[in-house]
């Protein structure tokens, strides 16, 4: 909200620089976001918090300054003239919940001109365009008192004035020239024939004050904040007027604003009050009575503010303060402070003026707490482990486009009912979307060697309910032996979690080929595999992508504690064996045989060489295995190892499809 310093100075003497003033106000909770000189005047852009409707006025700002600078507020209340009574028309409130009080002043014989220089500056420097003397006067009074006013061209109003809800389909062209269709949610001002204003939001074009206007009908009102909020939301606009009505107006100032506008119109536009009319009842403003203990206050703040200071601060802020014993105060809030409801509100008033900076910081002794978020700890461990494997963490959007999901053939997802754009209109049921986006983004920038992981939730529709499931995704692309790299990552992960009993089951999964399901105690916990050619082509991806996704709650449930496992100190010896394996047979057959025969002397085996050559039979793969032997109890003799190794050779050569060379 923008305010003119010269305007403020009408109400309070300021003897410090605008810059100092800004920081003073900021430290009192009225943050000055921008300070700018404009001619001789200064513009203050102030962030007015939602609780302080009263700061949406020059009076409110000036009052705050008067407290900070210990100066008097120079506010004169005009004498309210309510005679003669308006006879020409009736004011009829048809919707009393929406409009509590309405004043109309009929002012005759106005002379429409430009405003005098000083008035133009006042409104302009508060961010409002200067229109003519009448409109500028209504805006000047709104800015000063915080209660919006509206001036109609009285000759264009036909008959009585009604405050009512709009009928569906009624139309109004507002001052901004837009034709608006109205709804039940809109509160309007109407005459006998037509709608003349969107109440509290914007006037109608038809009844606008223009250069030919002779007679003015001046409106001031108290509308229900909620009604104005709904009405302007429905109309899709925010105005200086609606912004204030939505937050509240102080009915005591309503008459003042209307009266001052009346006086100014008489002075600057030669008008004359012909009739004062009203409808409804001026709402009673309630003063809150709150009793306060100085000790309680100081222990709540961790401060030591003396009673005298407290009393001084509160009276400055227009609170009435009475002693109640040595430690107590009885406080009556000023009528315009709708935000004061209970003790803590008073605490805040005191401490913000006393100075937040005067409260000494102090560390509390926080109690021991044993309840830990185990899932969070689990995720934290994974986050420290996965980078060790050379994976980079990514963070991708949880909100994706339904269309993209359909490309993946995904079934149901939770939709957003008020999406910003079509690209982000549903919650992802898989982390695959983010991984694909990331890999594609980087491939398109000629980056290879991509190894990523993400830890995040997926969101699943569960009949009429929902589930949020924490997941881990793994993705690699543009490296050698991707599948076996990924398989190795998964094995290391399971190893890290000390899960020894697991199974990789070949499975057919949508969008994937060469996929393995990871099964622990008959429970599938995740999968990994190669992205299907079809999906790749659809996404116009040139590289292969290998992807895995795991349910973290399940992985966590199978996680075992890491205990030291003793290992044998006796020497490890090895023997090599060259094998051919027919392509229709799995390596598993070899592995099983080696384990079966090697028994307790088998330490490990691995592939040390792979042969490719035209002279080799094309129906088989050829490679050399190195088998390591070790005993837990003694040093194995060369002959013993030869015997076991020979047994393995013999056993393997009996198997169909395996060639021992």
């Amino acid at each position, binding site marked *: 909200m923008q305010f003119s310093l010269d305007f403020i100075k009408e109400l309070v003497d300021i003897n410090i620089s605008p810059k100092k003033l800004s920081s003073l106000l900021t430290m009192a909770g009225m943050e000055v976001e921008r300070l700018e000189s404009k001619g001789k005047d200064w513009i203050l852009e102030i962030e007015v918090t939602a609780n302080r409707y009263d700061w949406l006025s020059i009076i409110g700002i000036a009052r705050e300054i008067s407290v900070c600078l210990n100066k008097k507020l120079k506010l004169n209340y005009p004498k309210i003239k309510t005679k003669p009574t308006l006879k020409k028309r009736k004011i009829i409130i048809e919707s009393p919940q929406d409009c509590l009080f309405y004043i109309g002043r009929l002012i005759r014989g106005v002379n429409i001109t430009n405003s005098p220089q000083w008035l133009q500056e006042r409104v302009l420097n508060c961010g409002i365009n200067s229109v003519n003397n009448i409109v500028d006067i209504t805006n000047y009074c709104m800015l000063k008192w915080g209660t919006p006013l509206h001036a109609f061209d009285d000759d264009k109003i036909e008959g009585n004035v009604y405050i009512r809800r709009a009928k569906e389909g009624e139309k109004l062209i507002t001052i901004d020239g837009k034709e608006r269709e109205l709804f039940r949610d809109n509160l309007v001002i109407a005459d006998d024939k037509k709608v003349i204003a969107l109440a509290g939001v914007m006037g109608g074009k038809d009844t606008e004050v223009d250069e030919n206007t002779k007679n003015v009908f001046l409106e001031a009102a108290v509308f229900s904040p909620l009604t104005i909020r709904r009405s302007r939301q429905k109309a899709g606009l925010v105005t200086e007027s609606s912004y204030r009505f939505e937050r509240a107006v102080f009915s005591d100032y309503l008459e003042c604003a209307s009266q001052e506008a009346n006086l100014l119109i008489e002075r600057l536009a030669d008008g004359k009050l012909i009739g004062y009319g009203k409808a409804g009842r001026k709402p009673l403003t309630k003063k809150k009575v709150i009793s306060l203990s100085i000790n309680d206050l100081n222990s709540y703040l961790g*401060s030591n503010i003396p009673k005298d200071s407290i009393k001084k601060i509160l009276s400055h802020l227009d609170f009435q303060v009475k002693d109640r014993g040595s430690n107590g105060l009885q406080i009556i809030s000023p009528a315009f402070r709708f935000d004061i409801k209970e003790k803590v509100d008073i605490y805040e008033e005191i401490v913000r003026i006393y100075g937040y900076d005067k409260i000494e910081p102090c560390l509390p002794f926080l109690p021991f707490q044993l309840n830990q978020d185990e899932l969070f700890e689990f995720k934290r461990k994974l986050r420290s482990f996965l*980078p060790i494997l050379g994976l980079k*963490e990514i963070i991708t959007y949880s909100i994706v486009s339904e269309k993209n999901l359909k490309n993946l053939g995904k079934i149901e997802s939770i939709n957003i009912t008020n999406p*910003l754009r079509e690209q982000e209109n549903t919650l992802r049921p898989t982390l695959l979307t983010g991984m694909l986006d990331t890999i594609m983004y980087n491939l398109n920038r000629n980056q290879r060697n991509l190894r990523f992981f993400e830890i995040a939730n997926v969101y699943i529709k569960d009949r009429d309910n929902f589930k*949020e499931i924490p997941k881990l995704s793994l993705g690699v692309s543009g490296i050698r032996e991707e599948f076996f790299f990924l398989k190795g990552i998964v094995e290391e992960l399971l190893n890290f979690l000390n899960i020894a009993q697991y199974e990789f089951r070949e499975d057919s999964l949508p969008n994937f080929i060469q996929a393995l399901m990871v099964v622990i105690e008959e429970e599938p916990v995740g999968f990994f595999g190669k992205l299907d050619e079809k999906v790749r082509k659809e996404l116009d991806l040139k590289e292969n992508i290998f992807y895995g996704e795991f349910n973290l709650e399940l992985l966590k449930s199978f996680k075992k504690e890491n205990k030291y496992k003793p290992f044998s100190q006796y020497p490890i010896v090895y023997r090599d064996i060259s094998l051919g394996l027919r392509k229709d047979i799995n390596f598993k057959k070899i592995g099983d045989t080696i384990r079966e025969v090697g028994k307790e002397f088998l330490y490990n085996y691995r592939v040390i060489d792979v042969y490719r050559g035209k002279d080799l039979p094309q129906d088989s793969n050829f490679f050399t295995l190195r088998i390591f032997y070790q005993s837990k109890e003694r040093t194995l003799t060369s002959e013993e190892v030869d015997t076991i190794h020979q047994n393995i050779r013999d056993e393997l050569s009996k198997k169909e499809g395996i060639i021992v060379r």
Partner: protein
Amino acid sequence: MEKEISKLEEEFQKDLSLVKGGEDLEKLRIKYLGRKSPINKLFTQISHLENREEKALLGKNINSLKEKISSIIEEKLKSVEIKEDRLDLTFPSSQAYLGSLHILSIVNNIICSIFERMGFVVIEGGEIEDEKHNFSSLNIPLQHPSRDVFDTFYLDIPESNDGRLLLRSHTSPSQIRVMEKNKPPLAVISPGRVYRPDKVDASHSFMFHQIEGFAVDKGINFSHLKGVLTYFAKSFFSSDVELRFRPHFFPFTEPSVEVDVSCIICKSKHLEKGSEYKCSVCRGKGWLEILGAGMIHPQVLENCGIDYKKYSGFAFGMGVDRIAMLKYGIEDIRLFYQNDIRFLEQFYI
């Protein structure tokens, strides 16, 4: 025989003088000390001799020649420059492939661990929330201007008893969830993703990260809030950073605070007299807003079944993205979610 030995020695000296590098030396070693060397041949000839004394003398002489040759070669080896094996040290290194944490995780970890040092525990909340926990319990009326800053994504899940379902627009619902389930004393921080329908630009994102923190116990007061946040800011930024606590308004705290730190980029250069310098980060203000906080509103405690006459508490919330941007000089929030490897590889753990 003696002659042969001395001839061999002469020959060796001659060969030695021709040696240029390590490779020649190795050839020389094989020639004179290897299995098929003339010295070994001489040794085999000893057995043909009959005189024992002669045998011993010859053996001794051959041995001394062998030792001599081997010590010369060894000595020479030390001084020889191995030019042929020269390694081009300017050759490009082979690439180590490093894993890494996302910078937002790193910042999250740093922030959490600072609070954990003070005795806070981490408890995460869910991202799908309802109106009660995202708004009402936090004293945010469903229709009120104070809600305008909390624009929210709603979800097509049937309404629950606690109102419509939505994506949480801040991490404060975690505070409500924890307080509903647990009795004080409590000191909790809760990090996580939050969502608001904001158009994406350099400083806005429809998804971002927050960390919520709160403590509830007997006797918790405003000066504790200042203490905890001062300790945090000094640990996170640097010990010479200054803090400014400004009054503000949040529906769920009273009194409420916004906390600024002195600009870590320009170090308040503008405050120097006559300085025309205007920092692009703090826009010449000298202060950067980093978080919102306050004493938990008694109504909020009551909404969670905590007796506000017995207990008091403070709460705070901060945007992780914003703080990471400030600390690391990242100028565009979109970088966090693009996951460009050239961005990711600048941060490790």
